[in-house]
């Protein structure tokens, strides 16, 4: 059985393909995630709106992108939406990034809505009772607290989106999984290329995971600055003064 005789030298020749795939996966993740955050904020606020003409479009948006498979969205965007707007394809990267962005925006919208709703009603009431208009209270009192609560789910979303980017291989995306597919086809060896792909995804997950737990610690549940953070800010004042 070939499981007993791995020959990773057989895929060493294709290393550039994997490296390129890694970069494309990273690029899709970063672009899709950043776009999804910004768009998600608007959709999430839309879902909190009392105005029907704001609320319903936001609601249907979320329902559609959470209720249909990402792969279907990707194919719709790549083969139908973009060609019918621009007259031709804009390449797999644009299609992939747009699909990931639109899709994750729907999930982010729900995170934002839930985060804002999770802040105790008393906070808004206390702010309003001081004479603060609703918008000001949202900006100064509710959002700063809600954003902290959104950090863990936003972290999960980042990892999920990174893994979802593998679907872009279905439109010959050139990302990590596609590299694996090409190499498996060329060498007729399935184990080594797909295992390599799996390990590389794991490495990415690990790195993103570290990043996320750093951010989570930085914005821990307590608002009281930890001694470490205090020391950092002392350092800064000393350097400044």
């Amino acid at each position: 059985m070939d499981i007993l005789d791995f020959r990773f030298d057989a895929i060493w020749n294709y290393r550039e393909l994997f490296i390129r795939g890694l970069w494309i996966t990273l690029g899709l993740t970063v672009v899709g995630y950043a776009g999804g955050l910004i768009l998600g904020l608007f959709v999430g606020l839309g879902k909190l709106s009392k105005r029907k003409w704001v609320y319903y479009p936001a609601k249907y948006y979320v329902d559609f992108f959470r209720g249909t498979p990402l792969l279907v969205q990707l194919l719709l965007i790549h083969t139908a939406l973009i060609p019918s707007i621009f007259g031709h394809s804009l390449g797999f990267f644009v299609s992939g990034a747009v699909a990931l962005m639109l899709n994750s925006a729907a999930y982010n919208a729900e995170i934002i809505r839930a985060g804002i709703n999770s802040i105790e009603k008393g906070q808004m009431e206390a702010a309003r009772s001081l004479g603060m208009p609703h918008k000001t209270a949202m900006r100064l009192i509710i959002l700063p607290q809600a954003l902290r609560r959104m950090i863990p789910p936003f972290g999960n979303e980042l990892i999920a989106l990174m893994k979802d980017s593998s679907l872009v291989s279905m439109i010959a995306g050139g990302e990590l999984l596609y590299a694996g597919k090409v190499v498996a086809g060329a060498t007729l060896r399935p184990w080594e290329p797909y295992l390599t792909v799996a390990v590389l995804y794991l490495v990415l997950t690990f790195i993103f995971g570290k990043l996320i737990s750093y951010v989570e610690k930085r914005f821990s549940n307590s608002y009281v600055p930890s001694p470490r953070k205090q020391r950092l800010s002392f350092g800064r004042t000393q350097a400044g003064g």
Partner: protein
Amino acid sequence: MITIKGLHKSFGELHVLQGIDYEIKEKEVICIIGPSGSGKSTFLRCINLLEDITSGEIIIEGVRVNDPKTDINEIRKEVGMVFQQFNLFPHMRVIDNITMAPIKIRKMGKQEANELARQLLEKVGLADKANAYPEQLSGGQKQRVAIARALAMRPKVMLFDEPTSALDPEMVKEVLDVMKQLALEGMTMVVVTHELGFAKEVGDRVAFMDNGLLVEEGTPDELFNQPKNERTKAFFSKILV
């Protein structure tokens, strides 16, 4: 100073306030007592429109609060409110909790606001806590900060909704002492409370609310020592055993 005429409030089918008429004069301390669920909080929250009014009217210093033309934020600047659950802003230091509204709403200078906050903290006995975060304070301390925060807007009247009900017994006194001081200084106050001792000692008038109506009111002596209404008598006989 505050005139309430024929105030009704319903939550859907639930008719909570069933026609309240009341008059609060300047520098008066009104204590409202009554069984749980009788509508005391709702009454207080109607005064600064945290609940919208179903019918009737509330006039504060000649301004009809529930007139669509009235800017409710202008009213709320003059009406301070202290909540049972404190509702301090957890992401801000004590000093910022207090200065935020004067700076953002009254457009007070930062220096002046800080000065004011320090005076108020001194007054509530927490001068040393200016830089603490709310989570670092005891319940009694939180409530005293909440009082200082409301006072920083220089309101003409203060509403208290069971300000000591969420406190451990040993902290009740420190909060009541601050309120007593405030009453001595001539603040107009409406206090919903279960602290009959406070009502007796500090209240100019005490009103008994039951089932959405102010069934009896008078001086503390009248109400506590010679109640006329059967429901008032029944209430006292239940809690004074």
